[in-house]
């Protein structure tokens, strides 16, 4: 792969810093009606340290995929700042350079490959655009194929439709790595794979991360996968971050009721401990006209009057652990909060 970008700010500087990232869409819910605002991503802030894996979880419509697309600049943001290794993306760091340092793997392994290009050409395409000579780019592609566990002589000349889903996802990973990025965004990258193949690809990702010193932003709705791969987990609900913290403490003691519900909703593997009651009722509401106050109050078992009025912000609840719940904010007026 191409030489990785130099580490500028040193290990203490976050690789990625996101401040107040916002994206609203306008959508017509009925013909001729005035459009309404979909608050897909509504002022989220977080940072990703060098070498860590941050997992983003949430249900459909929570904005996790929109957030990933905003980070990659696949769509313009409405507000907010993105700092890559201390440099402001768009001003000091041009987009072309960002794309070399930040790459993405998508859920649909087939749709993300050009059906008319052989696998070798697909992987070599990026480096060629960035000025690598043709022969060198081909060698690079073959080397990457080997790294993701595919024999170059067998696979280089094949087309995407000739290989299996798991193999295609390995190709997409190889292609993402071809430009030598330090940050890889994986948007539901293993969700479409069968379980036995999913395990293979997860192992590959863990190995590549160690070998190449990568940083991952891993988006998934599968909490089992999240728990396995993440160092820290960020939980989103209706366009907002509701909890963020180290995977161990978040699992052992989730501080936002939504996080607790997500964990409790996971099917068990123990036939003697089946789930007896659903942790929360109903579907996630639409991000068009989200509920007032705390957006989760319409489904929360601990909701009180104050929850519909006051919008909670992220508050420190433990080391490196924050939650946006009135019960976690002392003096918030919720009976579950400290006075």
């Amino acid at each position: 792969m191409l030489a990785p970008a130099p580490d500028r700010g040193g290990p203490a500087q976050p690789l990625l810093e996101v401040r107040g990232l916002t994206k609203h869409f306008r959508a017509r819910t009925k013909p001729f009606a005035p459009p309404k605002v979909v608050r897909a991503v509504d002022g989220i802030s977080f940072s990703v340290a060098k070498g860590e894996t941050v997992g983003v979880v949430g249900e459909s419509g929570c904005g996790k995929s929109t957030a990933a697309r905003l980070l990659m600049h696949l769509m313009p943001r409405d507000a907010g700042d993105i700092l890559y290794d201390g440099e402001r993306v768009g001003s000091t760091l041009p987009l072309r350079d960002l794309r070399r340092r930040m790459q993405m793997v998508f859920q649909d392994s087939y749709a993300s490959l050009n059906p008319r290009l052989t696998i070798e050409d697909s992987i070599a395409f990026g480096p060629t655009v960035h000025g690598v000579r043709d022969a060198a780019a081909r060698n690079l592609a073959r080397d990457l194929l080997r790294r993701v566990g595919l024999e170059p002589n067998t696979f280089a000349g094949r087309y995407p439709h000739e290989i299996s889903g798991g193999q295609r996802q390995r190709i997409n990973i190889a292609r993402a790595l071809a430009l030598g990025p330090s940050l890889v965004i994986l948007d539901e990258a293993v969700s479409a794979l069968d379980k036995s193949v999913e395990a293979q690809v997860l192992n590959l990702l863990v190995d590549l991360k160690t070998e190449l010193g990568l940083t991952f932003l891993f988006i998934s709705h599968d909490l089992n996968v999240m728990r396995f791969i993440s160092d820290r987990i960020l939980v989103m609900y209706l366009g907002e971050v509701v909890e963020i913290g180290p995977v161990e403490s978040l699992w052992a003691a989730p501080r936002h009721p939504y996080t607790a519900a997500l964990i409790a909703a996971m099917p068990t593997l123990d036939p003697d401990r089946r789930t007896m009651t659903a942790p929360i009722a109903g579907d996630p509401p639409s991000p068009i006209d989200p509920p007032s106050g705390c957006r989760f109050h319409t489904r929360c078992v601990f909701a009180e009057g104050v929850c519909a009025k006051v919008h909670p912000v992220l508050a420190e609840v433990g080391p490196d652990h924050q939650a946006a719940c009135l019960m976690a904010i002392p003096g918030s007026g919720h009976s579950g909060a400290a006075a």
Partner: protein
Amino acid sequence: MTTPILTIDDLNVRFSGRRTVHALNGVSLSLAPGEVIGLLGESGSGKSVTLRALMRLMPRHAQVSGSVEVAGQDVLAMKDAALARYRGRTVSMIFQEPGLALDPVYTIGHQIAESVANHEGVSMIAGRARALEMLERVRIPSARTRLDSYPHEMSGGMRQRAMIALALACRPQVLLADEPTTALDATVQIQILLLLRELQQELGMAVIFVTHDIGVAVEICDRIAVMYAGRIVETGTLREVVRDPRHPYTQGLLSATVHGATGRGRLKTIPGAPPSLDRAPTACSFAPRCDRAVPPCREAVPPLYAISPERGARCIFAREPERAETMA
């Protein structure tokens, strides 16, 4: 033992066209009334084809052999009128995508009422009354107003409830569920699973539940049949299969499942990928990926070795509970 409500015997399905696919290769299965069996397997293992064969939802170019008997009727021999009575009345099916399974141009109430009126020869008004009762039963909030909703006006979880209401409106004896919770959000999935479990107990129907997710199977099934390459490779009660899997594929699948695994380790995996099914298997289909495979595995298809009356595995080592990996 009670008489089974459903018996599949040596079912083979082959699709031929530009490419030949041996989708099912000798599937045998029986289901007692009121029993919930989980068909567990990865894509291409034949679990959905099995359900479609039971509903006779097969494309014209499919070659089907074997026998399928449900509630005393020979399903593969049915003529059109009998088939129309059978579908929805004896056996009903729910799908992964309610958005595709429901008719977009009719209201939910109309679709249920029509099905009831057709099957039971009652008026549409009586059918609508049943529709209301069913929507309440699947706990759709404000059911009376929802009768007049179109599918697109409902959320994903509510559409799935509506499809369950439609499927159960004529009180079928067998429900076929094809990954009905896979497309749903986590907090909604568990609600639908609990609803299905409750309705199954209330109505006493038998269920074949197809899933690729072991956790989902554990939540709902009494018995498990694991499928691989168009064949059932292991059957047993839920506890037996989950706690003491005897087929190396089941063992691999259980240990490859990311469940309660925390980072810094590696997951156990099954090497390789499932075989292409362009030829009828003449040996154990799992042998190329199996670390215990010995020459006999590559010479003939292993029979289902019985471990107990209700339990069996298609592996020559099935009767050795010891996972003697050193055998090979």
